[in-house]
């Protein structure tokens, strides 16, 4: 086996090993090793048959199945009922997780653009994978938002509280409209889905609410120094997302160089902002100090 192919397989196996932490401790102890061995076999066969494309094609359904089965496992263990403290604690890893997923898109884009992988089918697979990952990332993002809101609710002013509440509501809206869309796709033929425009409007409105909420919270963070450092981050995050999708939907303004104003670049900035925000929240958790009320 060539060194590069070993690399792809090794990365897959390591990533899968990390993802197994989504399951309960009991389940991991009982089946974690077997799952890794089984996935390793599946990866090797997929790679042997169709190369990198086969590996990517294996990952998408595996990821969806992993999330579904991990949720089922957690529900069986009775771990899905969450306390306030737990949600606040979860905000840190989930914010970093979502940021990392978005950064991976940028890295994948760079690898495909400047690496040796130039075939169109890899791009198609990569884009499909990325769209699914981006949509699914709203689920951990919602929990991250809930935790952030619970953490900063006592210290933020009315503007910040409103911003956080708007973000959470937007997150719920995005997920509900995605589910509604899936449901409509499943029960109605395509033309009838198109005849239900409110699903699309609700999704767009919810999506913007998340980021406008972040901007409002960002203004509050700058005014009252809510974070121990890097108070610019929440506002920057919201603003860059608004710019990203604003450019995507309404076009890039003439004074900006179009080769740089790509969604990929902006999403990488968003991803980096989320990762840094998660790091700031770690720092705040370590300080273990009660947040002062204003």
């Amino acid at each position, binding site marked *: 086996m060539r060194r590069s192919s070993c690399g792809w397989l090794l990365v897959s196996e390591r990533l899968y090993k990390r993802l197994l932490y989504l399951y309960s401790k009991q389940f991991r102890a009982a089946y974690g090793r*077997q799952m890794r061995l*089984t996935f390793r076999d599946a990866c090797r066969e997929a790679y042997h048959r169709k190369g990198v494309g086969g590996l990517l094609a294996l990952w998408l359904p595996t990821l969806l199945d992993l999330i579904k089965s991990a949720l089922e496992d957690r529900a069986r263990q009775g771990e899905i009922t969450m306390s306030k403290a737990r949600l606040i604690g979860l905000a840190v890893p989930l914010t970093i997780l979502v940021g990392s997923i978005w950064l991976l898109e940028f890295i994948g884009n760079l690898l495909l653009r400047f690496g040796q992988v130039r075939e169109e089918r890899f791009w198609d697979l990569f884009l499909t994978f990325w769209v699914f990952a981006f949509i699914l990332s709203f689920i951990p993002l919602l929990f991250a938002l809930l935790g952030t809101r619970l953490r900063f609710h006592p210290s933020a002013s009315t503007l910040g509280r409103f911003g956080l509440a708007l973000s959470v509501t937007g997150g719920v809206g995005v997920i509900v409209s995605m589910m509604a869309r899936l449901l409509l796709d499943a029960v109605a033929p395509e033309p009838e889905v198109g005849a239900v425009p409110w699903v699309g409007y609700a999704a767009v409105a919810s999506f913007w609410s998340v980021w406008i909420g972040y901007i409002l919270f960002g203004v509050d963070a700058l005014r009252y120094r809510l974070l121990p450092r890097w108070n610019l981050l929440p506002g920057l995050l919201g603003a860059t997302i608004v710019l990203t999708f604003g450019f995507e939907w309404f076009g890039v303004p003439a004074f900006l160089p179009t080769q740089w104003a790509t969604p990929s670049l902006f999403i990488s900035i968003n991803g980096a902002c989320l990762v840094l925000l998660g790091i700031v929240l770690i720092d705040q958790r370590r300080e273990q100090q009660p947040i002062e009320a204003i």
Partner: protein
Amino acid sequence: MHEDIQRLLPLTPTMFHMLLALADGEKHGYGIMQAVEKETQGQMQIRTGSLYGSIQRMIAAGLIEETNERPDPVLDDERRRYYGLTDFGRRVLSAEASRIAQAMKVIQVKHILGEV
């Protein structure tokens, strides 16, 4: 025993095909995945997460068990676990197969297959 079997019927498609895959001998997780895909001609693909979730439930229900036998210990990775049908699992599979066979008779009488 009869009531225990009836309580589990009808089996989910995943459980049914996993039991069917194990009917001709013990297999490890990946072996079960491959057998199910082959026996359903690619129409059903069980992913790793669902596979081990089902294995956990089926062991708890007494349908399958871990076995110590290794079909080919020299070639095989010794860390793998093999699973096989229990007597109860075989009876449940048989009961489910009878139920499907009964349905097949009705399908044949009503010429449903000819309409596909």
